[in-house]
């Protein structure tokens, strides 16, 4: 296009050119790595004569004798002015321009130049997302920006992640940030009802995303008012450019396996022998001779475990070795039985382009991921269509459309007996996978394969492999986001924009328990069908005005927004199926439940903002928003939220005029108030609920206490930051923030005597303060080699400042005024008593009713005192990233780290049961168990059906959660322009990428990336993935 324009210009002025005495100058323009640069504009300074380079970077220009200087310019590069002498060949190298100053920051209802921006935001570009084999974009944000934590505790494809911006501000209300897609807030969360984990964000194809901006402070996010309390994540999708249409194709194939090795477990022989030893010692102590004791130990072990993986009923002899001729029939490694190799396939194609009048972006994608656990997968078909058209010189119309369909299978989850992960961690290897005949061979199933063994004493009538082939947890999600918009320009300064959005989520979910084994056996099969529909309608109108009065720059915005949320759920449940394998409710003989319900929420808002700057040096921003929410009663329905911010570009001051090395030096600060209303939609009302039926008659019961005074939760955010960049190579940012959450929506516990457990109130206050810092340095920058290093760190503290009670138990943690929200509060492990091998814990000594202030130990877990044991929140977290490029090769290494924060290893607790649960798996650490008085060890005595409670929750299983993870490493090769043009492509790139390839954790044996509360709930393990991809542009 530009070429055409230039040609046109040249033609126009062609007459002038031929008049002078001309000569020809030619040459080649290259970038700093030596690649030729096409489309570089070359102009004779002061004259309207010029040309552009061709695809090989060469140019030829006829110049008049008056020409002194040529100006070479190209997008993304620093313009170069070159004096001409007499030469006829002039080769030029253009340096890449660090364009961070000209970057645009997406803010509420618009965009701002980064240089003029007074708030705190982090922008993540498409290239960071592109190579990553993740089902949803937010998983790729970890370590990429300060102040944001992303926890993906599950390796289930399509799983939900926990995203927190600048800590946690709430108790009962949601802490999830607001996600804004192309100017409209979109629905997030898990809308499935049977799946272990799901996330509607994964309906979006990350490859359609141009950039993601994390808005952290008040001025950036504040205009979203009540909805900005937890920060805002702004997603901008790709759109077309005027000019030749570009077609891009990308493909990615990846293979996954478990990322972190778990605790080593006993094999079948070790496990059997461990029990055998216990019984043998018991018999010897009871006076039996060695042979009798060995025989009895064999019998006792088999009868206690109800398993015998050996070929005879007397496998072990008194020497502790297998008797001669005894063979081991099987050794079931349940972990490998339930895990398989994960696989990702990801394809997308996009076409974008347009003219000055119409621009479009159209894409289609297919993402297919098979998880590492049986029956765990996720498939997405998506399409995106962004269109805009300048209908007249004052009217612009357009539409942004996202349409996607996902299908997800998950295994049974959490504490359920059918959860394959839990099963494989707690069932020992002495139970066979298949049913065995008398000779110990698996019995073939006429339908194929072998009959599965459902008989273990630990998890009776379950076999995760067998069940995974029969039971169903399937969710099909249809998501459509359609946003038509219209923009009117009355004058070039005054614009009106209106946008309406429908965000529809429609799910069909099936949960099926087969009639033969497991959960459905008792009722001859059970099917649940869930059919929720969530519809959000948003209408946004804004009027904006911007003008320049001399050195004064003014921008004003006023707007109005109305949002309607409606969730409708239908489900039905039936049992008693005629036979195995038939799933639909039509086949069920016993209808159990039919259910439907609706909930609604509405928001109405008015807002305004002004931006002012003087001479691009001093900046002032302010905003005001009034939100009404149907969550609150008439008297407290409307909340007023406001922000002020200022910036000072010190680098622009005259006293620094001579400091050429400073590219930018800016001091900025902001303060503002936003809100939160993310609680139950009818939380303020006193309610009697229907559906509490009895004896076939409809009944109602008192279900919720009224709280008329319920009102907005408030977040006051202060942000002070300094930004600097210099020598066109270094960049640094440091920000202090404090986020003070007041009137926190809080489920205040009540005495059960009131008939209720809690009432929703605004009773707590909490403060998050912290520092975020970022440095980026271009360490090497030359023709062929570039190295950019960046690192970021966030440290923050969380303090509960006020509650209606001094402290409150929250499971294994305690909320206490003066402490943080994730403070562990457990019994403290005091080790194993060497005299009797019993576990011991600390307790406060009390003598005749008065505490002495001393701590003593006790063997009784129930008597042990609970103490504060530190927080689950990390002290520091961040990322260290390196990007290298050498000629056509590039290498990027992204790491993520957290320091501090305690995590609880529940798996280890299950596997250190000291004999409590015969048949339950043990780790090899159990070999260290106490045996006789005087033994000093950390593993208590082993007793069949142990009641010592040694593995009850205590600090025995609480560990330092610090870790460093090689989040992503990518090696890419981009074909040189010469090569691509020879094969008639616009660009081509190949890469190999590794995700989560290495993890260095303080505590080994579990994945340290757990939920924000520091716990894991038998989740599907996080995966490491190796993938290969290619990207081709036509």
């Amino acid at each position, binding site marked *: 296009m530009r070429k055409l324009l230039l040609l046109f210009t040249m033609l126009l002025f062609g007459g002038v050119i031929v008049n002078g005495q001309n000569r020809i100058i030619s040459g080649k323009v290259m970038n700093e790595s030596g690649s030729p640069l096409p489309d570089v504009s070359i102009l004779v300074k002061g004259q309207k004569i010029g040309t552009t380079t061709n695809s090989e970077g060469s140019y030829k220009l006829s110049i008049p004798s008056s020409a002194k200087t040529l100006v070479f310019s190209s997008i993304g590069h620093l313009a170069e002015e070159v004096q001409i002498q007499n030469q006829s060949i002039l080769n030029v190298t253009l340096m890449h321009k660090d364009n961070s100053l000209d970057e645009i920051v997406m803010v509420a209802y618009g965009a701002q130049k980064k240089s003029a921006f007074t708030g705190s935001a982090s922008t993540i570009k498409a290239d960071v997302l592109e190579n990553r084999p993740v089902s949803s974009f937010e998983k790729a944000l970890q370590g990429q920006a300060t102040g944001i934590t992303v926890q993906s505790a599950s390796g289930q494809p399509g799983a939900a992640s926990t995203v927190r911006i600048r800590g946690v501000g709430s108790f009962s209300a949601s802490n999830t940030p607001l996600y804004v897609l192309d100017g409209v807030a979109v629905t997030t969360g898990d809308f499935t009802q049977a799946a272990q984990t799901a996330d509607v964000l994964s309906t979006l194809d990350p490859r359609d995303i141009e950039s993601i901006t994390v808005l952290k402070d008040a001025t950036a996010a504040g205009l979203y008012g009540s909805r900005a309390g937890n920060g805002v994540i702004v997603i901008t999708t790709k759109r077309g450019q005027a000019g030749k249409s570009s077609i891009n194709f990308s493909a990615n194939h990846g293979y996954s396996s478990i990322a972190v090795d778990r605790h080593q477990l006993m094999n079948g022989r070790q496990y059997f022998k461990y029990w055998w030893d216990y019984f043998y010692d018991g018999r010897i102590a009871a006076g039996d001779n060695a042979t009798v004791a060995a025989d009895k130990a064999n019998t006792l072990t088999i009868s206690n475990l109800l398993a015998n993986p050996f070929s005879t009923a007397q496998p072990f002899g008194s020497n502790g070795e297998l008797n001669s001729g005894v063979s081991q029939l099987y050794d079931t490694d349940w972990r490998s039985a339930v895990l398989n190799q994960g696989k990702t396939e990801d394809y997308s194609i996009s076409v974008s382009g347009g003219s000055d009048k119409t621009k479009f972006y159209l894409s289609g994608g297919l993402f297919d991921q098979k998880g590492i656990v049986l029956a765990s997968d996720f498939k997405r078909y998506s399409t995106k269509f962004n269109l805009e058209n300048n209908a*007249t010189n*004052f*009217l612009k119309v357009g539409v942004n459309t996202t349409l996607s369909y996902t299908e997800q299978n998950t295994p049974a989850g959490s504490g359920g*007996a059918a959860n394959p992960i839990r099963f494989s961690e707690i069932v020992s290897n002495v139970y066979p996978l298949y049913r065995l005949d008398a000779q110990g061979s698996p019995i073939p199933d006429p339908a194929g394969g072998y009959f599965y063994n459902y008989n273990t*004493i630990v998890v*009776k*009538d379950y076999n995760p492999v067998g069940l995974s082939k029969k039971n169903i947890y399937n969710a099909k999600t249809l998501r459509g986001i359609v946003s038509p918009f*219209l923009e*009117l*320009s*009355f004058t070039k300064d005054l614009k*009106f924009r209106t946008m309406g959005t429908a965000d529809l989520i429609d799910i069909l979910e099936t949960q099926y328990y087969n009639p033969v084994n497991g959960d459905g*056996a*008792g009722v001859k099969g059970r099917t649940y069908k869930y059919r929720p529909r969530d519809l959000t309608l948003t*209408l946004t109108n804004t009027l904006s005005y911007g003008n320049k009065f001399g050195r004064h720059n003014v921008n004003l915005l006023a707007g*109005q927004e*109305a949002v309607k949320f409606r969730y409708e759920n239908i489900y039905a449940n039936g*049992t008693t199926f005629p036979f195995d394998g038939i799933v639909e409710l039509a086949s069920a003989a*016993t209808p*159990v*439940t039919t259910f439907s319900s*609706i*909930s609604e*929420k*509405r*928001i*109405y808002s008015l807002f305004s903002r002004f931006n002012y700057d003087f001479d691009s040096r001093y900046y002032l921003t302010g905003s005001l928003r009034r939100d*009404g*929410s*149907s969550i609150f009663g008439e008297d407290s*329905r409307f909340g007023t939220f406001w922000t002020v911010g200022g910036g000072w570009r010190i680098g622009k001051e005259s006293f620094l005029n001579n400091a050429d090395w400073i590219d930018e030096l800016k001091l900025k600060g902001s303060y503002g108030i936003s809100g939160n209303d993310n609680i139950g939609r*009818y939380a303020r*009302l*006193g*309610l*009697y*609920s*229907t559906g*509490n039926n*009895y*004896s*076939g*008659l*409809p*009944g*109602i*019961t*008192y279900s*919720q206490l009224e709280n008329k005074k319920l009102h907005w939760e408030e977040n006051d955010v202060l942000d002070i930051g300094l930004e600097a960049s210099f020598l066109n190579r270094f960049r640094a940012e440091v920000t202090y923030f404090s986020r003070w959450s007041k009137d926190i929506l809080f489920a205040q516990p009540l*005495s*059960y*005597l*009131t*008939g209720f457990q809690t009432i929703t109130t605004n009773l707590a206050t909490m403060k998050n303060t912290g520092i975020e810092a970022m440095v980026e340095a271009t360490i090497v920058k030359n023709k062929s080699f570039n190295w950019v290093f960046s690192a970021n760190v966030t440290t923050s503290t969380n303090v509960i400042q006020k509650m209606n009670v001094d402290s409150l138990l929250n499971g294994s943690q305690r909320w206490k005024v003066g402490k943080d929200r994730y403070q562990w509060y457990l019994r403290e492990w005091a080790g194993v008593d060497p005299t009797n091998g019993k576990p011991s814990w600390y307790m406060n000594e009390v003598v005749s009713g008065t505490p002495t202030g001393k701590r003593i130990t006790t063997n009784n877990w*129930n008597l042990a005192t609970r103490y504060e044991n530190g927080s689950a929140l990390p002290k520091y977290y961040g990322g260290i990233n390196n990007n290298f490029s050498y000629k056509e090769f590039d290498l990027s290494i992204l790491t993520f780290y957290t320091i501090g924060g305690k995590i609880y290893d529940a798996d280890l607790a299950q596997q250190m049961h000291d004999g409590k*649960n*015969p048949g339950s798996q043990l780790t090899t650490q159990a070999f260290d168990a106490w045996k006789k008085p005087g033994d000093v060890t950390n593993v208590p005595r082993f007793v069949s*059906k142990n*009641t010592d*409670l040694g593995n009850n929750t205590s600090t025995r299983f609480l560990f330092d959660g610090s870790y460093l993870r090689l989040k992503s490493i990518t090696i890419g090769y981009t074909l040189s322009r010469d090569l691509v043009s020879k094969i008639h492509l616009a660009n081509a790139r190949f890469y190999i990428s590794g995700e989560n390839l290495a993890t260095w954790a303080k505590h080994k044996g579990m994945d340290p990336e757990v939920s924000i509360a520091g716990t894991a709930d038998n989740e599907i393990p996080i995966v490491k993935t190796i993938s290969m991809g290619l990207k081709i542009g036509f």
Partner: protein
Amino acid sequence: MKKSTYILILISSSLFFSCKKDFLETKPYTSIDATSAFSSVERIDAAMTGLYDLITTSSFNTHISLTSDVKGGDMLVVSTGNYSRFVTEYQYLQSPTAGYGEGFWRDAYKLITNCNVAITQISASPIPENIKKDYLAEARALRAWAHLQLVRLFAQPFAVDPSSPGIPVVDVVLAPADKIPPRGTVKDDYDFITSDLLFAKANISPTRTNNGGRLVLNSINGLLARVYLDQEKWKDASDHAVLARNGYSLAAASTLLNGFVDKTSEWIWTLAYRSDDNTGYLQIASFQEPYDIGYSTFRTPLSFINLFSTDDIRRNQFFVNKTKVQTGA
């Protein structure tokens, strides 16, 4: 330019709608305002029905029955396939956080609160006086029943020490900020329970039938018999037992081995559990019945069965796996 002004006026008049006041008024679809729960005959009927639903949740009455069984010492829990259910109770390891006790406390006071709301609201409700009296009697009887469950679970038996600490009696609707009633003595609890039940006995409609699984005069007399028995007031206990049985003939011996599924002539108060009314998992039959579905993990030792004489038909109500008994497997 003129055209655009025109469009602006058009759009701003249609889109910049004034926020109608009722736009932000949303109402729940499956609940009603608590203050209106006793405003009509139908609502009161539903609220009275709801009281029984609160009894039948598995975390309450069902778990109480099962807990009492395993704590009685006459039953044992086998570990195979039991998923540690009721083991805390069986091993006497209950604490405020371990075992099902918290649920009993929570659910009983929830029922008591619902009864107290009914007792407060019914007096002023738009229903005929005779129905008012009948419903008040029913609500007070259920309130007594809930207190009786609590005092039997959380305090010393009356026969051991009536002056030992009891459980708090709640006879008013407590607001969140109200002072919580303290624990009185076991005797205070029994006095309160007796007075509620005597009120119920005097006021409940004598024409009620026991078909719908709700309380009738006979069942209130039965509860009184139990309460007097606990207090070792033998005469009162015996008198009320006779009153309770009045009109309910003993079932034929031949029906005693038919199991506990179909109602017989001697059933006075039946809690109606139905397959279409999900009251939660972990039901009594799941643990007690000998079939290989559900948990089926509660067992009676032979020594307990042997306490019944051989000609006692109740002895035959136990399922004995003869092969297992003979082989000792």
